[in-house]
């Protein structure tokens, strides 16, 4: 019974919390820039608002355009059920493999990029092109950084990894640290943050993610926005729980799990602050500088893998 | 008895051909009668050899299994070429290129040419063989200059001079072999058997020198590089059926001479030496032919160089010995068939396009539907594509050499690729492109189609199935050579 409850929490946690952390990041950023900023709960309102608006769809769009938001959202749900959130005792040996997560994310990107092209606009196409460039070059760093922690813990199952990473002594944690750096870069790229993309721009010259979803409106835009929020939280969670697993429960008792959830929220909060700090302190990079950064991520992660064992 | 028929028929045919005064049809009739008779006689001889190990008449004419193998190729190509000649010459007469007297000359020389080759195979005497082979040179000289153009004169002159010189050197080598036998008795009829028996007592050094002369001499006739120079000229200028006979029959006869002397010199204790020489010449021939084939501009010369290449491969097989000898003999048979097919196709193309330049020939598959297919099959066969037999014999020959001559095998494998690439380029250029507008498509004459098509069927069948009797015949011949 408790198992079932925990599973429901596991599945719902990411979609329920994700708008909040997007909002929180924005708010922290605003404060860092001496602005008041909207409330951290603003994204919830936005999604609700969008769900209650009429929708305009391009005459050139096909069924793919219509179906993509649902499928993309579905992938984030499945991923949400596959990553470690609160307890290492909760194990998903079906979809918990990190490659499944990485490739489900790629599936989302793939569908979104196609949807971007589908409407035949000038923006969607180049958005897709840039998105695929970044996504393709991120893959190496992402896989290898996750592989580092997988190798240390002797399993590629994400939910089983935190347990053994937690017990790595500090003196041997160099690979983990390197892998985290590699992962962070990949995360920023995948979640369309600085220095890869500006999540709040609609400037033709620089936008990536926003260019693809330009034609969406109403409920589908709500789903897309929500999905990217989910994706953001998924990455933050992976960063927090795979590389800093302290505080995760190792049983399915109510008390430790509740505690673990609290710790989890704090860790995620800290990472959001870090992202906001980073976004406020650096400039966006030119698109052809991005590959350098992504290859750096790959090399760092490769070194990390090499150092394991 | 069959041996006498085999010699008498072409002689009679030649004489009766010369006796004809004005009726061209008679010439064709003589050719059409003589060729099957010769073929039947040859077949009887071969059957006899298969049954009894040899076939002889008196003490001067005999065929052993080795001779029988070569006889098969000569008789077969001779038969096909005779019928093809009838059709081919009709086309030439129709186009007004030649007249009656040239046709008569052609058939008379053709019969004499066949006679000389049959005699070379049948005679038991090395000197007799030399005379016969020299006679082939003389009888074909006018066939090569048949079209009487400056270039055909040039080809004929080179053919005559180079082969005469080569054969005289071969004659000298023959004398050196005979000298050692002669010491033991004057005025005897010295046949191959005597020569081989007494070779054991021969000074090995002398045997080696003699073999060098023989190899260079008859090697000139075989077309081994670098004595091959006459071959592309002669083959390309002769009328196509004669080219087929030169490539498919004459080269084998000359090779037979080398093989017989190889047996003698092996008996004199120069086995390793003769094998090495054959390997050298084989490799050089293949290499030179392969490189020239790439840049070739003339399709008949292309086929001629291919003959050099294949004689090189056969030489290699004899040089490697063992299974290679068997394969080389079989290779000679396959090569005769495939090369005749190609030269017959070349003849049809020449009749249609009036040019032997590759660049001038376009769209053969459209203009000559049957010849085009024959050409393609011939090309695939001659370059050693499976499922055709040459692939298997080449594999066998290389497998015989892999143990002792690894670098040679590697080199030859690569050279064969080169040959293939060159051939492919030329043949696709001729076959697949669009035919010129002005050209009427369609084959000319059934007599120019039936021989190549039948040969194609025969060749394909022989690549899949080698009758047991033929197999044992070739094995016996290989055993003779391997000693």
């Amino acid at each position, binding site marked *: 019974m408790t198992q079932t409850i925990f599973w429901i929490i596991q599945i719902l946690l990411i979609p329920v919390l994700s708008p909040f952390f997007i909002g929180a990041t924005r708010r922290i950023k605003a404060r860092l820039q001496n602005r008041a900023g909207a409330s951290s709960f603003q994204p919830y309102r936005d999604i609700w608002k969008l769900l209650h608006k009429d929708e*305009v769809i391009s005459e050139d769009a*096909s069924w793919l355009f219509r179906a993509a938001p649902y499928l993309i959202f579905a992938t984030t749900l499945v991923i949400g059920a596959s990553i470690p959130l609160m307890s290492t005792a909760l194990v998903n040996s*079906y979809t918990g493999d990190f490659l499944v997560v990485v490739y489900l994310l*790629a599936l989302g990107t793939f569908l979104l990029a196609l949807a971007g*092209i589908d409407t035949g606009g000038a923006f969607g196409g180049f958005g897709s092109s840039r998105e*695929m460039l970044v996504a393709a070059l991120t893959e190496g760093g992402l896989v290898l950084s996750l592989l580092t922690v997988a190798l240390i813990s002797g399993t590629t199952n994400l939910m089983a990894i935190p347990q053994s990473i937690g017990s790595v002594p500090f003196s041997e944690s160099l690979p983990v640290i390197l892998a985290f750096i590699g992962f962070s870069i990949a995360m920023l790229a995948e979640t369309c943050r600085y220095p890869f993309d500006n999540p709040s721009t609609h400037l033709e010259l620089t936008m990536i993610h926003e260019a693809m979803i330009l034609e969406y409106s109403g409920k589908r835009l709500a789903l897309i926005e929500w999905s990217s929020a989910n994706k953001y939280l998924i990455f933050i969670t992976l960063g927090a729980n795979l590389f800093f697993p302290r505080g995760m429960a190792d049983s399915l008792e109510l008390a430790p799990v509740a505690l673990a959830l609290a710790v989890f929220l704090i860790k995620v909060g800290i990472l959001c602050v870090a992202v906001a700090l980073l976004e406020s302190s650096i400039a966006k990079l030119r698109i052809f500088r991005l590959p350098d950064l992504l290859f750096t991520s790959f090399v760092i992660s490769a070194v990390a893998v090499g150092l394991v064992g | 008895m069959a041996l006498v028929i085999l010699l008498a028929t072409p002689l009679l045919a030649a004489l009766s051909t010369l006796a004809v005064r004005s009726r061209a049809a008679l010439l064709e009739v003589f050719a059409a009668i003589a060729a099957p008779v010769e073929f039947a006689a040859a077949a009887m001889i071969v059957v006899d050899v298969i049954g009894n190990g040899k076939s002889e008449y008196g003490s001067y004419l005999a065929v052993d299994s080795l001779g029988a193998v070569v006889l098969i190729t000569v008789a077969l190509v001779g038969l096909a070429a005779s019928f093809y000649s009838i059709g081919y010459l009709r086309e030439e007469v129709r186009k007004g290129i030649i007249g009656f007297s040239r046709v008569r000359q052609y058939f008379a020389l053709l019969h004499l040419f066949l006679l000389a080759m049959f005699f070379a195979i049948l005679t038991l005497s090395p000197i007799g063989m030399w005379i016969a082979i020299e006679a082939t040179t003389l009888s074909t000289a006018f066939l090569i200059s048949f079209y009487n153009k400056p270039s055909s004169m040039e080809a004929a002159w080179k053919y005559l001079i180079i082969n005469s010189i080569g054969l005289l050197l071969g004659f000298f080598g023959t004398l050196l072999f005979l000298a050692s036998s002669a010491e033991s008795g004057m005025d005897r009829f010295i046949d191959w058997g005597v020569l081989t028996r007494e070779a054991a007592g021969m000074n090995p050094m002398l045997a080696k020198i003699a073999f060098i002369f023989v190899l260079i001499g008859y090697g000139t006739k075989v077309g081994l590089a*670098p004595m091959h120079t006459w071959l592309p000229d002669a083959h390309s200028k002769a009328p196509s059926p004669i080219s087929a006979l030169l490539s498919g029959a004459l080269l084998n006869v000359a090779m037979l001479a080398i093989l017989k002397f190889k047996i003698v010199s092996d008996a004199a204790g120069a086995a390793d030496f003769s094998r090495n020489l054959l390997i050298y010449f084989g490799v050089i021939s293949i290499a030179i032919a392969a490189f020239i084939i790439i840049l070739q501009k003339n399709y008949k010369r292309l086929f001629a160089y291919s003959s050099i290449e294949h004689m090189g491969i056969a030489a290699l097989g004899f040089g490697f010995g063992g299974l290679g000898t068997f394969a080389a003999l079989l290779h000679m048979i396959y090569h005769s068939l495939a090369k005749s097919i190609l030269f017959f196709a070349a003849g049809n193309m020449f009749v249609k396009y009036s040019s032997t330049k590759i660049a001038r020939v376009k769209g053969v598959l459209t203009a000559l539907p049957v010849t085009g297919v024959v050409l393609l099959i011939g090309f695939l066969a001659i370059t050693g594509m499976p499922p055709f037999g040459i692939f298997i014999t080449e*594999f*066998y020959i290389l497998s015989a050499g892999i143990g002792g001559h690894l670098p040679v095998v590697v080199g030859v494998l690569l050279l064969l690729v080169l040959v293939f690439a060159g051939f492919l*380029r030329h043949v696709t250029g001729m076959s697949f492109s669009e035919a010129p507008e002005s050209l009427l498509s369609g084959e000319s004459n059934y007599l120019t189609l039936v021989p190549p098509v039948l040969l194609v069927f025969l060749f394909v069948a022989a690549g899949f199935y080698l009758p047991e009797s033929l197999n044992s015949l070739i094995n016996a011949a290989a055993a003779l050579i391997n000693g």
Partner: protein
Amino acid sequence: MDYFTSPSVFYAILAVFAAGATGALAFRHHDRAANILGNSLAAAGSLAGLLFSGAVLLEGDVPAFGAGSSFSLLSITFRLDQLSAFFMMVICLIALLCSIYALGYVRHYYGRYSVGMLGFFYNLFIASMILVATSHNLLFFLIAWEVMSLASYFLVIYERRESASIRAGSLYFIMTHAGTAFIVFAFLLMYQATGSLDFEAVAQGMAGASPLVRNAIFISALVGFGVKAGIIPLHIWLPSAHPAAPSHVSALMSGVMIKTGIYMLVRISLEILPGPFLWWGLVLLVIGGASSLLGVLYALSEHDLKRLLAYHSIENIGIILLGLGGAIVFSSAGMNSLAALSLAAALFHTLNHATFKALLFLGAGSVIAATHTRNIEKYGGLIKLMPQTALFFLIGSMAISALPPLNGFFSEWLTFQALFQGVISLDVTTKTVFILAVGALAFTSGLAAACFVKAFGITFLARPRSEAVSRASETGIFPRLAMAGLSIAIICLGLFSGAVVRLLSGVGGSLANIGGAEAADAAGFESVSVQNGFASISMPAVFIGIGLAAIAITAVVFLLTRRRQTVIGRTWDCGADLTPRMEITATGFSRSIITVCRRVLRPSSETEIEYHDANRYFPKIGEVTMGLHDVYRTYIYRPLQDLLTLLAGYTTKVQSGNINAYILYIFITLIALLFLLDLTT
């Protein structure tokens, strides 16, 4: 079932193909009859072959059978062990669907080219591939191998009035023939070492062969079969030859024929040669990594739909080689269960690639038949005109991009797992290679996804970019049937991957150098787990998870918004009138990636501008041609060709035309030989 896996059934299958070939040839003057006869018999033969090989996989090996021949070394013998049966199954599966496709597809050749010849060579091609996979004698194998090359050559040049086809065919034929020379050399070495040409006897005899011989055999086999498989840098024929053939043949060539090279590499390195060396595996890993990365990068820069797909074949062969290389490394280190895992990954990807590449080529064939162009810059909006083809192509695209829950994802997952094991269990140098291989594979799948966003997006989405394309219509019933079949196969192979892994584990385990090890701990319907629980996955769960989540969210959103309207409007484009010329082009799509990889790809661009005026202020027409420098031609094949031409030029001088020189040759040869004689004694 025993009676079904008997030799006579096998002969009967071959006879069906023979009937198909001769039937098509006999009716070559009736296009329709030739089509129906040739292709339906090919389909029947393939179906029977599929059942036969499937039965062998389930029932166990068929021992060697057949007959001798007139030639002592050649015997017409066959053996269907698990590996052969597996490859025969792949061949027959794809051939079956391609033949069904062809029934409809070849109609557009009626009256233009001889359908009878197509049917003849097509049947010959399939039959020869089956022979290649099942022959038991090296010489017989070579014959089948070359007949396969021959048949495919004639299929490549089928459209013989196109000079590009002829050129592509010639290049293909020469390359494959050169490869065959290496294969012949490898076989000759085997013959020399063992005195036999029968696979079994050779495998037994090779135990005594020296390491030098074994290395030489491996290298020449790698080159020889590598040409056929299309590994870089031996791939140059592939992107031009595969597209030139009719599409159902392209599908067979790309999907199946190149795998015969893989088949023999597996057989030689893991069965015939005892105890593989470590470096063989490392070389394969390096080649595999390079081929996969470069293959996909070249694909990205292609605008010709079929050439693009052909480059993806190079990429996927690279991925297969990663698995095979891993298997050899593990086998050489004695880690048989890891080798089994790695080999299972390679074989699984072989099967998967066959299905989705065939599907993509068939889809491309339908698109090309409907639009009469192969240039994707001219396409667009076909998803509305050819909805079913678009769906099938999308499934293929997703599968080849390794997106879950389709089969491509699973085999890449398995390959990744095998490579991970190499990182874990091997020493530093070897490990480095494995890490790089992991990286290469990761980048490859990312780039493949990018490439198929381009291929699918530009082809099927947005608006038609040319007049001809806007008149396209859905393809016929047979082509759609075939594509549907392949799509189902793709989905099923993903869904039932557990069962397939179990099957492949048996196939790999039957090889001598793997020694019966199991590929996976547990491979059932619900999940597959490898290496004592190092990793586990459930493809059905991924499938159902996505499905359920999508249904749930759709339901929720529907409930929330059921009273809202959906309006159809124009795409917003800053107020300008939207035309197809504003859409992103394929060139533009991939240009950024190409620019990033410019060091490797060496992009080129030529600009041509026509001006209105003499002062060149007002351009009239500007044209930019973007392409890649062909480094392989520039640095390998062109110099080689030049060298050969140079040598040929020198050799030609031998034949100078001067008779005195000719006599001199004879004279010099004579003197030289006499001296040689003196030297040797």
